[in-house]
């Protein structure tokens, strides 16, 4: 890895999240200062600020750009318990802030993560969010002008039963989230980018080390639960990323944990040919299989984020010690640490020579 550039985004507080748009031509930043800023890449590769606006009444936590087929849309989530949908103004209102197209409320806690679903004509534009109340909420706007948002699904993640188990785990009473859960829990989600299997996403909540893969329609149902081997002692998850599958027959997911573990899961949906052989939809759903094909960094510092590149061939992670790591598969498909970047001051020259 080589540092190529710097940008001072000019927020009044620390940046909380940064996202690139679909083409890598734009960058949205948000901050504890409640503002969103949009930057555009210049031909020289530097970033020019296009606009900024105050978007929430509390620190903003997460951003997501929609697929461009839905237009130029950005979603933001915040400690103010809302998700807001923003649309780029048309030419006439250029310098202006983005236009608010929706305020999605209902969460009973900070909304920790928000992500637009992949384009899917069957379901239109969908956006998923998860908040510290452990509810995964899916909203949609069937109205092309995006002014009418409705909640499609509200899923209590801890209550999602194992695949094939019809009995839902009863949701706990409102106040049941223990203080320890709140103190060391994590909440996250990531959509499956492939629409062949329907509207599918991966999510986790609270102190559970289990990642749940959920198909949303017609009723939200678990496809498979990914629990690390020897999960009795496994640490809570902090982050998840579903890799773009690029037409491969299997999926890759990465998770980060509080104890520094980064896991790479290879998940295989039932084969297309086999689909006909199953007796029921239920059985199809049960036949997803998964295998943990890579495990790194156990016992290290809390993993802050995991993210894939566009082809799902490179995994980037960051941890609480300020180290960004890049993993790649070898020809034999085993995963390998390829490079790392540290926020620490580099060792002095003598130190290097003495090595």
């Amino acid at each position, binding site marked *: 890895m080589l540092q190529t550039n710097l940008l001072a985004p000019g927020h009044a507080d620390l940046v909380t999240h940064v996202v690139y748009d679909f083409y890598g031509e734009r960058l949205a930043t948000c901050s504890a200062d409640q503002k969103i800023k949009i930057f555009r890449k210049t031909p020289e590769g530097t970033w020019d600020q296009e606009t900024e606006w105050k978007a929430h009444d509390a620190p903003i936590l997460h951003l997501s750009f929609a697929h461009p087929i839905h237009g130029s849309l950005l979603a933001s989530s915040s400690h103010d318990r809302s998700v807001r949908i923003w649309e780029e103004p048309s030419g006439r209102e250029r310098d202006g802030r983005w236009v608010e197209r929706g305020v999605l409320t209902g969460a009973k806690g900070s909304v920790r993560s928000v992500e637009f679903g992949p384009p899917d004509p069957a379901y239109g534009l969908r956006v998923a969010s998860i908040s510290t109340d452990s509810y995964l909420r899916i909203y949609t706007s069937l109205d092309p002008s995006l002014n009418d948002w409705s909640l499609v699904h509200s899923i209590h993640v801890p209550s999602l039963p194992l695949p094939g188990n019809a009995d839902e785990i009863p949701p706990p009473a409102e106040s049941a989230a223990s203080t320890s859960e709140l103190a060391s829990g994590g909440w996250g989600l990531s959509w499956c980018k492939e629409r062949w299997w329907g509207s599918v996403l991966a999510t986790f909540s609270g102190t559970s080390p289990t990642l749940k893969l959920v198909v949303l329609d017609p009723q939200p149902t678990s496809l498979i639960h990914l629990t690390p081997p020897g999960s009795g002692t496994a640490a809570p998850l902090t982050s998840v990323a579903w890799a773009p599958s690029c037409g491969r027959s299997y999926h890759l997911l990465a998770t980060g944990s509080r104890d520094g573990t980064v896991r790479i899961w290879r998940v295989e949906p039932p084969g297309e040919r086999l689909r006909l052989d199953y007796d029921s939809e239920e059985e199809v759903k049960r036949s997803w299989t998964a295998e943990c094909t890579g495990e790194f960094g156990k016992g290290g510092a809390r993993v802050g984020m995991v993210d894939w590149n566009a082809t799902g061939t490179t995994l980037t992670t960051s941890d609480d010690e300020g180290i960004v*790591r890049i993993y790649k598969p070898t020809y034999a498909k085993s995963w390998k640490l390829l490079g790392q970047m540290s926020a620490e001051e580099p060792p002095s020259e003598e130190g290097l020579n003495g090595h």
Partner: protein
Amino acid sequence: MAPAPTGFSFAPPAAGSPFSFAPQNNTTSQPSSSRPPAFSFGSSSASGTTKTPAQPAHTSDDMDEDNDREMDDDDDVDVSYLQPAAYPRGGRGKWKASGRTTSAAVCPVGGEVATWVTKKPSSDPNQPPTLSKSDLTLPDRTLYFSSQHVLPDPLVSLYTESHLLFTSLQNIVAESLPQRRLTSGDNRITETWDRRGNLVDAQSLLGPPDAETIVHMRRLIDLYLDNLNDLRSNQEVEPVLKSRFNASYNIMNLAEILYFPTDGKGEGFVGEELLDWVNDVDPAPDNSQGNDIMATKNPWDHPSFWPYISRCILRGFHLPVASFLRSLANHPHPPVSKLATILAQHLAVFPRSSEERWRVDLEFLQAHKLWLAKFRAELTSFTGGKSRGSWFGEAKWASLEGDFRTVIELMEGKPNRVLEEAADWREALGAWGILVDVDMRRDHLPEIMSIILDKIPVDTTLLEDAVQSALCSADIVKALMGCYDLDVWLAAHLGDLLDKLELIPDDEERFETPLRDYFLLEYTEILQNNPKYSAFWRVVCDYLNFAGPEGRNRLRSHVVHVSIPVSKDVKGKNKETENTGDGMDVEAEQDQDEGMGIYYEIRAACEEFRLEEEFKMISQILAARLTKKGDYGVAAILCAEAADGYALSRIAEKILDSYISHGGEEFLRLVETLPPKLMSEAPTALAALQSEPTTGLTSDLLFQSAGSVFASRLTFLSQFRDYLLFMQEGARELAAARLITLLTSGIAPVGFWAVLLVESIALLEDSDILFTSLETVELLRVLQDVIANASFAPDEYLGQLVSYIQRLTNETDEKEQRKNGAQKGLGPEDALRKIEEVRLALGRNLARAVVVAFDSPF
């Protein structure tokens, strides 16, 4: 002499050799030698296991840990450092305790990673975290960007140049396929099944390309080599890169000699070519040293005299050796000078296969045999049966005898002597084909290499040597693995070449992608993941297209991520842009042209690679962006490309809206921007759709109705334009007729009915009677419809009329009015009042028309 043929041959009958061009359909013993025990990339630990050992466990929790763990757990991985550093060396604990951490985001295109300092989540996740010290430092306010690969210009140049060669190569080989199919005979069936019963692609059974194709391929390899040669000899290229180019050149060159022979068949002797290659890779001996030796009074006293002679013989420089030996003519001891003369004489006529005098190979072999016999005979007569150590009589010359023996044995081609004298395996190999096995052919190489390497092992720390020796040993997989560690470009391009010869064994059981595809994909990743990625988008398309199913899949995702610039300013006459300088407009237009240029390039690529779905999506997205920008004309073209009828009708509606809000002039301007072909074909398309109504609920229904919607919208636009033009020209009769058509043909959107009715007032009040009584009644019927429907859907039926009246009544202060909004200023009741005016005008006209009809019934 030469080892007995081992079944290695380029000729078709002998199959099954890694060196053979014939298909490797025998799955048994032979190819297993070329299969390495385990694969590993760039890692010293060669393990095929799926799990990497976990790092040393640290029991401490992240909140209280402060042991400044070094990053040594990831030993062999390079660490780079962000500048400015977020915390000083040794200051990690303090920095963490302040509540800070870092996070990162990956760019979906170009592989850039953005890193920033952020706050750790607080212990109450519903409360925003705080810093122990709230002052923001410089790193706190910085976004760091980094990239996996940064390409220096020489690499960009190589990658760009070699792209065209690569694609030509694919085409040449592809074009040779049908020919091979024809000539392959009856015994090769087009469909064949493997052992497991899977249908095997017929193409893979065709075997390697024919000699002619290989000759074509060789020409392209020469061009690859030219590129590399230019770069390795360019003074401006950094030394590190230069040595990489040099290594790539040497390896590619060796591969060309061994696998892409000039005759395309590889039947000739390979010794001379290999020796030339050795002399090019590692030039020796040093000329100046030779001059030094010859400059001394008694050259044979020079310590390097004999070693220099040996080196020259090994490197095939026989004439210089002869002159060296002739210097011994002045030697004080006559037997020495006599022997030296004999050797010099014979060296000077040592037969070389590269000489042009041989008409056939056999002639050379016979000449060499003869030469050797003569040489030995002369030697025998010289020694006259003298025993070892007594050639020159006196004991003081005994040591000279050893030196002479070395030369003689080298000339005779004694394998052990060659192996002793050679500095490394490469020199030994180069000499082998000149001295030991003068009939050395490509097929003999693996066996000869095993003899050489047995005595002179390859220094495994030298990657380049390992690759070269693997190539010579026909261990293709090992060679390519080494190439990959050396330079991904080389692995990709050489892998592609060798794969075309079907020299890379399949290992489907262990690996998902063939080795060739894997290297090409890895190379493509470099092209995709560097700051200059956008310049390579088309190059990437080609490589992905040729990189197997996985490549094709990645191509789909690659092409939709290509960014098409759309200038932000609205083109043409629009309120805000009017005020900006002309310069801005020119710039915007240039952006636009550039954007469309890329769009058409993408279209060409999508056509070439048959990416219809992707192209449709790209067009839809761009059309939506242009529509939003007000560039309806181009947007409409794109909608047509994408066959997106809904988007087209939305554009038509927007243009119609412009009449309501901005008037006829703006409407006509916008209609003009639409492609004329689209407009002229719309009525025909509509008629066709109406005459062939869809029967039943077919899957096409959606598209059909979309088609008819956009066709009717466009027809309406074009007819309404005619109406406006008639009005402008004062052709009021034609205008009236057109107005009737608009309302009676069923193509007018319902919201526009009321507007058209109001438009008719001026024509109804004309001094001439422009509407017949029948037409007037028809208009009355429409009017009744509007009023009836407006009672339950006022917005739908009167909304547009309201805006329309608003514009008419506020032409002078249009801007102000727009700000206030239509709903506030006027309402449906105003519209109804206007409709009543129409009714009045209709009534008057009806009366006039009836009277006229009475006066002149015919």
